[in-house]
């Protein structure tokens, strides 16, 4: 069965290795350049005092952006890689077998369907684990200079390609792909369904749940204060805005400001009592990673369980 999985999918395996190599080389080359540049920037010393929302190191940020903005934008696509793996490798696993009718051959050899599926799952998920693991260290190293400058470790480009979440989304994509293939039994439909399901799971978790894994820390400051209180650059501001007399929060001013009003007058006309910032401290990063990875692993288990049930009971 191991032999069969390898023989059937050896071309995909080779392509995966090639893709990993290409990405690896890209990360290595550009990462070295960035690391070098970063050393030079370190001399400006402003990094030590950088804090969230302040305009310090503005020049630094601008220079970094103009040089590496392109790469960073390209790297924003990296979180899509697990999805591609799940859609192009995971979805066809069962779907193509049924679509091309070879399931009539393989499921009447001497191994049970359950064994066929579990061995294949183990090998494919194992390969996914290895592939994502291989890039992990490289990605962290690559992201490190930008994270120190921008403080966006909770942003998708960094967060989604770090540690447990990176590996868990790879497994999730594969599990969802296999489930979609077992459900639809047609390759193109399975690939489409994989993408839909993956986004349907990831988007709410990332956008709605992640900011609230733990209750954010809230800091209020009076409207007299010119500058908001300084936060560490690695903190993640989840929301900020205004508190009115009743204690209600809002992120927008009700009426906007007139041209000649001072800021204080404007806020008062709008009924604002105080400002607030709700944030997640940077040291919660790894806790959040493990929580989110656990969520995705839970979904993966669901998808895999459903796949096993479908293959054993429903197919053909």
């Amino acid at each position: 069965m191991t032999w069969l999985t390898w023989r059937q999918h050896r071309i995909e395996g080779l392509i995966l290795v090639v893709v990993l190599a290409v990405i690896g080389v890209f990360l290595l080359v550009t990462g070295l350049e960035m690391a070098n540049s970063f050393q030079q920037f370190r001399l400006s010393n402003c990094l030590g005092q950088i804090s969230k929302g302040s305009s310090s190191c503005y020049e630094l940020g601008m220079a970094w952006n103009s040089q590496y903005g392109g790469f960073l934008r390209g790297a924003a696509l990296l979180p899509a890689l697990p999805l591609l793996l799940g859609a192009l490798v995971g979805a066809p696993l069962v779907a193509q077998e049924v679509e091309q009718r070879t399931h009539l051959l393989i499921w009447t050899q001497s191994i049970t369907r359950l064994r066929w599926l579990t061995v294949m799952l183990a090998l494919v998920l194992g390969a996914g684990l290895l592939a994502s693991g291989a890039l992990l260290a490289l990605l962290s190293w690559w992201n490190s200079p930008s994270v120190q400058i921008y403080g966006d470790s909770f942003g998708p480009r960094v967060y989604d390609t770090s540690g447990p979440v990176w590996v868990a989304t790879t497994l999730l994509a594969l599990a969802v792909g296999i489930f979609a293939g077992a459900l639809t039994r047609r390759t193109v439909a399975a690939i489409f369904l994989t993408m839909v399901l993956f986004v349907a799971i990831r988007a709410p978790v990332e956008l709605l749940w992640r900011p609230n894994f733990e209750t954010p820390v809230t800091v209020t400051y009076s409207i007299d204060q010119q500058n908001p209180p300084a936060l560490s650059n690695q903190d993640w501001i989840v929301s900020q805005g205004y508190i009115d007399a009743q204690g209600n929060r809002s992120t927008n001013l009700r009426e906007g400001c007139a041209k000649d009003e001072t800021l204080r007058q404007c806020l008062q006309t709008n009924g604002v009592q105080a400002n607030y910032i709700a944030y997640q401290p940077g040291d919660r990063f790894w806790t959040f990673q493990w929580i989110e990875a656990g969520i995705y692993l839970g979904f993966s288990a669901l998808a895999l369980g459903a796949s096993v049930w479908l293959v054993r009971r429903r197919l053909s």
Partner: protein
Amino acid sequence: MIWVSSRQHRAETLVVTLVLAILAALLLKTGLDMASAYQQLGIGACLAETRRSQTCNTALYAFQGGFSFAISAIVWLNVLPALLGLFVGAPLLARELEQGTFRLAWTQSVPRLRWLEVKLALVLGVALLASAGLTALLTRWFSPLRQFGALYFPLTFDFEGTVPLAYAAYALTLAISAGALLRRVVPAMAVTIAGFVAARAPVELWLRPRYLPPITLTGDPGKVDAMVPKTDWALDNGWVDQMGHQVHTGAVLATCAPGQNSIDFQGAFAQCTHAHGWLMSITYQPADRFGLFRNIETAIFVALSVALVALTIWIVRRRIA
């Protein structure tokens, strides 16, 4: 023939229509929200101010913060052409070839090439129409942001005019020809994704800044900064010495503004750089070139599409048994 095509591809047509409808609805809603917020907060007047007041900064902050999510979400629309290629283009020929139904389709009374022509025309036509509609919507969506100058530059370029249509045509024709060449759907999909990224990324990151030689201005920080209008596309921001050799920004900041919170280009900073003989150098492309650039980029992708169509026709005519 038209009936056959639409019957064959009706599932995809349905899904594409649905996706576009949802997208259009979202764009309309967020676009209207953004336009009204723009009005309410007085952003237009605010941006015109040379010295921004505190209220102005607050308003700007509120506006940009409130819509930062929508703007970053829009970036993902860049994958739409690739998705089109994946789900409409890749199966077009590959599925028939993989399942052998081409032997049925190509022995009806319609000759093989005519069958291909009609399919290509239909699929490309509908795709271009849909792209045009979406582009029009996006152009309106971006109008408030355009006042910020070139701040949102790549977006406003990628989603405007004929450029998105060229991307769509390229992705589609790439997928169709990959399907004809490889004769299997999933490999065709993989090639589509790889080929789309391999064309878009280098063109956008490397070629586009160089369609025409960029202009470089050097001089004292305060002066140079003022000479480049906000609407122009700043490519590179660096420092050179009197001989024209590059000086690393880090070194300049370390010497003239060590550990400082903000830098005033007029004051002590400028004196310091002047003393060291360092000049600020800004490389940029003026905004009046954008139209030309769009045409050049459109032409590149249209040329690729035409070549791919030719390849497809050649393969279908000659190679397939």
